[in-house]
């Protein structure tokens, strides 16, 4: 093997990496694929990366990202959002549908997907709206979106709940036709009118309108029963309460096809932070009590909660530099996700790295019907790989953020773990903590796409 590498995206040897199962391996990547894992020697054309002490994970997959384009480009674009993704170790993101125009037609989802492909930092899979304009009245063109170039499989009105029971039933049934899944944002709108934070003694003390747990749990309970009744797949976005974990656990025991996600922030932060009235802690669903955080962690550990997704929600500064009621809901989360997961779940002994690979890569890929991302480092698998330094421990600062917005709740918080390298389709989008150049990444993505067409 001395020939010059002509394959796109070059040849890399990740030397001395630790696989999720704990085995040590030298991982050789070439032409966007994993060529071998074992112990390998490098030739002159191979870039050798010292991966000693680093954990190799299948590229992380985020089932819940707000990329904001089209329509809210002052907050984020597909390019900036996927740069943030690469910096956080993600090689694929599912882009939520609450754009402007709403991603409720084949045209919009194809545009978003194409922007992602052109940028090259991560695979972008658009999520289609369940209802036209997220208005909760008419089903959107789910079939057209599913059969478009974007091949949409996840449908969600995220930000709004599909609260009409009949419409939800129809949506669950209809997406079955296309092997899709409805990802529900579970929030009873009447019980949460103008709600600002978790309802309890603290919301009463702070004078902020309460967001009762039952507003989430009652929708989840209804939806799992609907999913059971129509025999459809249901995915529940961002569970935030202990009661929600109980309902999902019950549903799974009953054999209902339900999957559930939790966000990193709901696994680490509690409502106590809101005493500051600092709007960086304003998020939907709201931060809850410590009991809820513990229940969510237990839910992830025992598999009741299938995946962790960021709900990366960028907002411009002025949307957070204001009084609480006026502030926007949401936090950015792509760059902090892995450190938060390590801090909350790995360091606490609840998950090992194989579990992390499961909840942050393999399961989200499976739920979203994303090919090429779920792997166990087998030969021939697409080279979507993330290298993490689990020994790193540092104070999270704004310079770790690479998107357009800085609304992170973790500024100044000490977190474990650091994503060092990210390979998307065999191309290093993150190189020992430094993001690859935008033009170089776009060129690599173009050449890779062309090589795939030639091979096909």
């Amino acid at each position, binding site marked *: 093997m001395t020939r010059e590498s002509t394959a796109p995206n070059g040849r890399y040897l990740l030397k001395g990496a630790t696989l999720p199962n704990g085995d040590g391996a030298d991982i050789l990547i070439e032409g966007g694929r994993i060529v071998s894992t074992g112990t390998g020697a490098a030739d002159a054309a191979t870039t050798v990366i010292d991966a000693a002490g680093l954990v190799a994970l299948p590229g992380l997959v985020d089932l819940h990202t707000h990329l904001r384009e089209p329509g809210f480009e002052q907050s984020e674009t597909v390019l900036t959002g996927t740069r943030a993704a690469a910096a956080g170790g993600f090689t694929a993101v599912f882009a939520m549908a609450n754009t402007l125009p709403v991603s409720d037609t084949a045209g919009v989802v194809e545009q978003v997907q194409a922007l992602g492909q052109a940028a090259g930092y991560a695979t972008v899979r658009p999520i289609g709206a369940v209802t036209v304009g997220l208005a909760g009245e008419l089903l959107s063109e789910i079939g057209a979106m599913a059969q478009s170039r974007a091949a949409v499989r996840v449908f969600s009105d995220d930000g709004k709940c599909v609260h009409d029971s009949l419409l939800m039933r129809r949506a669950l049934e209809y997406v079955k036709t296309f092997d899709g899944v409805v990802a529900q944002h579970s929030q009873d709108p009447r019980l949460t009118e103008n709600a600002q934070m978790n309802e309890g003694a603290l919301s009463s*003390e*702070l004078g902020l309108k309460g967001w009762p747990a039952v507003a989430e749990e009652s929708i989840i309970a209804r939806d799992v029963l609907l999913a059971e009744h129509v025999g459809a797949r249901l995915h529940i976005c961002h569970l935030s309460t202990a009661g929600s974990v109980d309902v999902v656990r019950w549903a799974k025991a009953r054999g209902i096809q339900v999957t559930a996600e939790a966000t990193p922030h709901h696994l680490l932060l509690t409502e106590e932070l809101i005493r500051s009235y600092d709007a960086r802690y304003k998020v939907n669903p709201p931060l809850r009590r410590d009991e809820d955080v513990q229940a969510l962690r237990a839910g992830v550990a025992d598999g009741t909660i299938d995946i962790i997704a960021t709900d990366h929600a960028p907002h411009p500064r002025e949307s957070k530099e204001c*009084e609480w009621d006026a502030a926007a809901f949401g936090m950015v989360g792509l760059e902090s996700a892995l450190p938060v997961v390590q801090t909350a779940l790995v360091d606490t002994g609840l998950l090992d790295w194989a579990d992390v690979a499961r909840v942050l890569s393999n399961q989200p890929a499976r739920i979203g019907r994303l090919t090429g991302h779920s792997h166990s480092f087998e030969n021939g698998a697409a080279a979507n790989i993330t290298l993490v330094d689990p020994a790193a421990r540092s104070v999270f600062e704004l310079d770790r953020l690479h998107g357009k917005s800085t609304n992170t709740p973790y500024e100044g918080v000490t977190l474990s773990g650091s994503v060092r390298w990210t390979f998307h389709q065999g191309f290093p989008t993150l190189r020992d903590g430094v993001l690859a150049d935008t033009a170089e990444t776009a060129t690599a993505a173009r050449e890779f796409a062309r090589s795939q067409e030639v091979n096909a």
Partner: protein
Amino acid sequence: MRHLLSTKDLSRAEAIQILDIAEDMADVQTREVKKLPTLRGKTVVNLFFEDSTRTRISFEAAAKRLSADVINFAAKGSSVSKGESLKDTAQTLAAMGADGVVIRHHASGAPQVLAQSDWIDAGVVNAGDGTHEHPTQALLDAFTMRRRLHPGASRGKDLDGVSVVIVGDILHSRVARSNLWLLRALGAQVTFVAPATLVPVGASTWPVELSFDLDATLAATRPDVLMMLRIQSERMNAAYFPNAREYARQWGLSDERLARLRPDSIVMHPGPMNRGLEISAGAADSTQSTVLEQVANGVSIRMAVLYLLLSGEREALS
């Protein structure tokens, strides 16, 4: 004291200090010359995002009697209603050289956001924020109680063992919250009486007795102080209770209930009153009512607060 945002932050000693200084200010109010030169050259801005003529003129009188310059900045008819942010407004006031900002805002926590920000370096007084707190109202209520309970000898006194019953829309009342924390700090026993719909979730964890039954509470506690809260008509539309008649019958202070109070019990109301709804005209105008004293005492308390916030050298940010 750098800001006054909440009574929850006040210790007993701090609360008594404010009340005692208010006694000095009240003495000044009985003189022919009611003005003190203390805050000459200081600028106090009344920043009102929510209408309240009463509270604004009380703060205005307090600031003027301490010789401060007063700027009234009302949301209506100003750039605020055109969507200018709290941040821009604060920076404008900073550029005008405001030393103190008295802020009323419909959003809970807005005064704290202003105080924590680097938009303006002024002392911030919370003049009522959303359904959070209204600390100067609670201070003037405590001041009024103390003066009634210890006529002519209230200086230095706390409210140990005093029983206070607060009746009405606890859920939406910043007055009830501020009163609870302050009265507890001063040693009083507090009972909230309200229909279950108007009791805040989680209030059972607060240091307060909760009751749905006004008559039973009055019979059991024979309170020193009965405080009636204003009921807003929009609560009826939001199904917190069926109608005004039922509310008045169950939770209003009628003449008949007034007659059952101890003759030395005092009746308080933060105003403005809905006569015939939460309080009968007879109760409002009785000698047991402190409604007008509360108004006069409001100026003394606000003078004391402005003095404490604005007279000394600026405390370093902690």
